[in-house]
């Protein structure tokens, strides 16, 4: 690239960070930014150069209500998240002492039908935790290359241990899919697109020594995604 073009890119990155780019120029810049590492580095450099401007602003103590809302939104045990309805119903379910996976599945299916549209998923599975309650919801879409995992009430594990999710295809081949999240949502990439013949398993593994071929510990959960 010529020096003049380099300089243009650099100044455009500055204008982008400053916020003055508009219209076609902005759209073109953002398009380039997606896969141009050099440009991304230039944007980072301008963020650093201009960042001290924020020091000119006097700190202001925010009202306590902001933290209260934040705490609710980021804590897995608080009920302000969109799954609050599901959560309270699960409490009800647990109180009844029904622990069979099929029952959980049935109830969760009902509860989730309302959210099916915005999840955009067409099949799902409830992974039970160590208390035989719903630990995670795993959702997928037919012919799609990833799973959507939502932590509901994950198992309490000793430090350094994690729940690893596996998929077994119709030919009996095992694939590690990743670690189930401790809170929030996570997307796990699938080595092949989702089909109804796949089986899923969970094993408890050392976080630092995740196996890649097969579970090194016993399987603590097994199930299939069910169409909804």
């Amino acid at each position: 690239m010529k020096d003049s073009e380099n300089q243009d890119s650099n100044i455009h990155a500055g204008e982008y960070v400053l916020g003055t780019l508009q219209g076609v120029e902005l759209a073109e810049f953002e398009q380039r930014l997606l896969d141009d590492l050099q440009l991304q580095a230039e944007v980072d450099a301008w963020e650093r150069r201009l960042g001290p401007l924020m020091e000119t602003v006097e700190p202001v103590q925010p009202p306590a209500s902001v933290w209260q809302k934040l705490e609710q939104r980021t804590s897995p045990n608080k009920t302000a998240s969109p799954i609050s309805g599901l959560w309270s119903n699960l409490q009800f379910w647990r109180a009844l002492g029904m622990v069979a996976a099929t029952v959980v599945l049935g109830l969760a299916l009902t509860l989730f039908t309302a959210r099916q549209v915005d999840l955009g998923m067409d099949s799902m599975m409830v992974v039970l935790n160590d208390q035989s309650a719903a630990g995670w919801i795993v959702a997928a879409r037919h012919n799609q290359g990833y799973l959507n995992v939502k932590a509901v009430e994950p198992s309490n594990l000793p430090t350094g241990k994690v729940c690893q999710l596996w998929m077994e295809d119709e030919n009996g081949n095992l694939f590690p899919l990743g670690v189930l999240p401790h809170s929030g949502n996570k997307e796990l990439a699938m080595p092949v697109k989702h089909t109804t013949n796949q089986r899923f398993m969970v094993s408890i593994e050392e976080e630092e020594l995740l196996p890649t071929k097969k579970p090194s510990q016993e399987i603590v959960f097994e199930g299939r995604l069910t169409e909804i």
Partner: protein
Amino acid sequence: MSSVDNKTVEEKNIRNQQLTELLAACALNDQKAFARLYQMTSANLYGVVLRILNREAWAEDCLQEAFVKIWNNADRYRPYLAAPMTWMMTIARNQALDQLRRRRREVMESDGHAFREEVDHDPLPLENLTQSDEGIRLKTCLDQLKEKQRQMIAMAYFKGLTHDELANQTDTPLGTVKTWIRRGLEQLRRCLEP
């Protein structure tokens, strides 16, 4: 004095180290670390978003969204790319600018009138830019720009105004605005990285 004194530098380094460790703990879903991080930084971040949005209700929403982003993206923080405070402030500023632009668009679309900007008479109080070596360097370089250039850069940075909007608000031809900003940025870069 060309640099902040040693004691301040040391305090800043300790604080940066603490913030970096807290972000690392947040990446592992440590709620207590998140509470501490909020306690240590929320006033700085709130100051910035309030400065950009100028309305408390919007700024409170924005601060909340910024911290949710910080919590969700803590694992993406790379200490070698930016100081923790710069990283968090950048998230807060971008969140505030997005919100401001969205509100501007909504107002324009709903009644066809221009969005009422809150007037900021002192867009860039440079005397505050003395808390860090980076700040002092930037101040020295900004001091070398023309007053108008400095003002434009400050208005753009804190109000997210595009070239067109800057031209309208300052009654300056669009071409002149673009040239001033361009030259201002070029001068700044040369001055900061000679």
